[in-house]
């Protein structure tokens, strides 16, 4: 019925349409060879890698710039990149030797001083970089000949992991142009050169044939910003886009039947979890037995199979196996509603009611599934959905008045337990609603030493405490989901990077 009406309606506009179709022109984005078109959900906030640190920005700019270090796409090991080698001189001092054969797109050579400038620029408070916190452990950074020396405040086990994210900018060009102009017309040394940024709509890049790693196979790329998922799917189906990112499990179901398309997925270091308010006196979740009861009451496997359609791996703790420090020996919690009821009975809280705070940024179906599971064991759940900015303000408020339970998906970008456990569970940190001096001691000890064995031991201790005290329940390891034309050869990996140089057109 709807469709026939639509046809009639379209007839009405036919004359107008025909006129426009034939009069209209849209020029091809770049050259004659096929340019890779990528649909992102939101526009890059900036192309200056010293500024905004969000996926939509670095998905684009990491193709324009080279990073100091790199992760091997397969093994995820940290490997040399702009720095050809490095050594730890003492507890606090690191030296990086910079390659001599890298040139920026404007022809100038990349020097050690450019690397030091890239770090010091972020550390300069007046630059207002949201990335400041990633590097605030650095006390000094100096260049001499081809060596960059970095000193940290305390021994830092995560320094190298952070430097994987450091893009090197050309000092001379940035100083000549100023920050604002540099952001609009970025010059890097990466495999792709910046061409044009149509604000709000798209960014064009073209291959840097002189890149030190060799000429990239794909001649150019257009990153398009398409906030609506259904529109991104239409773009892919109509051939306007070759790859679309930021999909969910329901989106990709519809694409699987299309023979010309492929669904690409990869487990990431993002972990989904439920976190309890263990500090507020009026919260039923202050009692450890209530927290344990909830942990036993949730059917995590059902959530992963039915809601995520299998795009998730169950985890036993709030960390994924991809991160350093993951402890496979932790017992975790099985689905056991009877045990949950018994624990509630012991706690004398059989008909308890709790508040679940959430924001539209999280999958509401998961929140509702948890509500349903808890109702089965006699826990009433009131869902309180607030807008993201208010959500952050409320849950991060030291007053801890946000409710009793919340859902989250966490990634620290360093693939290290430190970046997850400290912000979520250490006493007094931003996201923590838990306080335990033994846990703090273990986390502090692991944070200030670079010896891997000692660190693993401390994290093992930490996970034991987390298993006993249950300040949170690990739910699953999250997947990235994207879809692409079958012509494209690409395998997304756990670090959620988007390096066009790793992609190819099939012959």
């Amino acid at each position, binding site marked *: 019925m709807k469709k026939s009406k*639509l046809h009639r*309606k*379209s007839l*009405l*506009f036919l004359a107008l*349409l025909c006129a426009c*179709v034939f*009069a*209209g*022109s*849209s020029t091809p984005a770049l050259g004659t060879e096929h340019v890779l078109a990528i*649909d992102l959900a939101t*526009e890059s906030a*900036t192309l*200056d890698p010293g*500024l*905004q*640190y969000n996926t939509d920005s670095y998905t684009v700019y990491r193709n324009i710039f080279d990073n100091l270090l790199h992760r091997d796409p397969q093994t995820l090991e940290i490997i040399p990149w702009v720095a050809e080698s490095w050594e730890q001189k003492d507890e606090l001092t690191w030296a990086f030797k910079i390659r001599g054969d890298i040139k920026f797109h404007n022809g100038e050579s990349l020097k050690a001083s450019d690397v030091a400038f890239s770090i010091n620029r972020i550390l300069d*408070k*007046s630059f*207002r970089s*949201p990335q*400041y*916190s*990633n590097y*605030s452990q650095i006390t000094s950074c100096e260049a001499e000949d081809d060596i960059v020396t970095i000193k940290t405040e305390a021994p830092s086990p995560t320094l190298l992991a952070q430097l994987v994210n450091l893009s090197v900018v050309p000092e001379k060009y940035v100083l000549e142009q100023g*920050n*604002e102009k540099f*952001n*609009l017309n970025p010059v890097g040394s990466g495999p792709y050169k910046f061409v044009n940024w*149509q*604000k*709000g*709509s798209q960014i064009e890049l073209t291959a840097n044939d002189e890149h030190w790693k060799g000429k990239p196979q794909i001649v150019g790329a257009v990153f*398009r*910003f*398409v*906030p609506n998922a259904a*529109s*991104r799917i*239409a*773009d892919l*189906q*109509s*051939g*306007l886009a070759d790859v679309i990112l930021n999909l969910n499990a329901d989106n990709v179901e519809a694409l699987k039947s299309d023979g010309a398309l492929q669904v690409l997925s990869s487990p990431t270091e993002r972990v989904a979890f439920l976190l309890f308010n263990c500090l507020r006196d009026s919260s039923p979740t202050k009692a450890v037995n209530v927290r344990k009861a909830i942990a036993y009451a949730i059917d995590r496997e059902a959530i992963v199979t039915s809601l995520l359609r299998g795009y998730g791996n169950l985890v036993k703790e709030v960390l994924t196996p991809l991160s350093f420090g993951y402890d496979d020996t932790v017992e975790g919690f099985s689905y056991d509603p009877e045990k949950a009821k018994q624990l509630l009975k012991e706690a004398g809280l059989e008909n308890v009611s709790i508040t679940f705070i959430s924001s539209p940024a999280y999958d509401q179906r998961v929140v509702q599934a948890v509500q349903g599971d808890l109702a089965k064991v006699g826990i009433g759940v009131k869902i309180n959905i607030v*807008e*993201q*900015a*208010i959500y*952050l*303000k409320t849950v*991060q408020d030291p007053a801890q008045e946000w409710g009793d339970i919340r859902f989250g998906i966490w990634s*620290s*970008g360093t693939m290290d337990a430190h*970046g997850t456990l400290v*912000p979520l569970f250490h006493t007094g*940190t*931003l*996201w923590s609603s838990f306080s335990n001096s033994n846990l703090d001691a273990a986390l502090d000890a692991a944070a200030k030493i670079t010896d891997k064995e000692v660190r693993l031991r401390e994290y093992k201790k930490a996970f034991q405490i987390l298993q006993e005290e249950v300040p949170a329940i690990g739910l699953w390891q999250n997947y990235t989901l994207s879809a692409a034309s079958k012509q494209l050869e690409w395998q997304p990996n756990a670090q959620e990077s988007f390096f066009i140089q790793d992609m190819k057109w099939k012959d």
Partner: protein
Amino acid sequence: MGISTIVFFALHLSGDPVRLMVPPDATLKDMDILRHELGLDRPLYIQYVEFFENLSRGDLGHSYVQNRPVLDIIRERFPYTVRLALAALLISVVTGIFIGIVNAVFRGKWIEKMFVPFILIGQCLPAFCVGILLIMLFSVQLRWLPSTGARGLKSLILPSITLASLSIASLAQVTRANMLEQLEQNYVRTARAKGAGTPRIVIWHVIRNAGIPIITLVGLETANLLGGAVVTETIFAWPGLGLLTIQAINARDFPLVQAIVLFVSIIFIAVNFLTDLLYVIVDPRIKLEKESA
């Protein structure tokens, strides 16, 4: 100024841009440093006074997220909104008034009955529905037109039809009602008695007399469209003010939101003023009445 004040306080009291900007594992100390650099740690009344001081100098500030002057950002986006608004307006005015006139003239005939379903569809279907249906047909099935983006005239067609589909219906209804009222007036009978045909009567006499309510509606519609069409712009990834507004609000990019609100208010007032001027041109009696009063 009233609008700016409301927006200023509503925004500042409802969320903290710094929390949205920093990586999730940033510490409180790191956030305080950024907050200080952005001037957000000062008392609210000082920020408020400063906002108006800067405003009086024409400085609307820098976007927190993009780190660029907000006026530059609006200047880039506004032309897209204008382009989309004008195209949608053209389609809706031409189609809406045409259907309205035809329905009035052929009242109760088969022609009117044929148009009724379109009016109903236009009134019932929300923009996201019309938009997605158009994309499925013209982009995915026929591959005639691009589904998203803003490159060339081709990409303007689907969003403008989507946007217009909402106002075609209301314009057609208003036109029809006013035409019917005018067609029963004495001057129409006189004209008929003098032997004038229907086309001549409608074009030379009735439209001018039925014009004022239509102009009012078109004026309101224009102001609305120029403020940015959030849903349509989102579906078609059209980089206009609507999309920018949503992004700025979600990021609590205070200076950008304030500038957009101010800008859209000025446009609203300007368009309403122009509409009033248009009344005088269409119907000279309005001016005379004012003068005699």
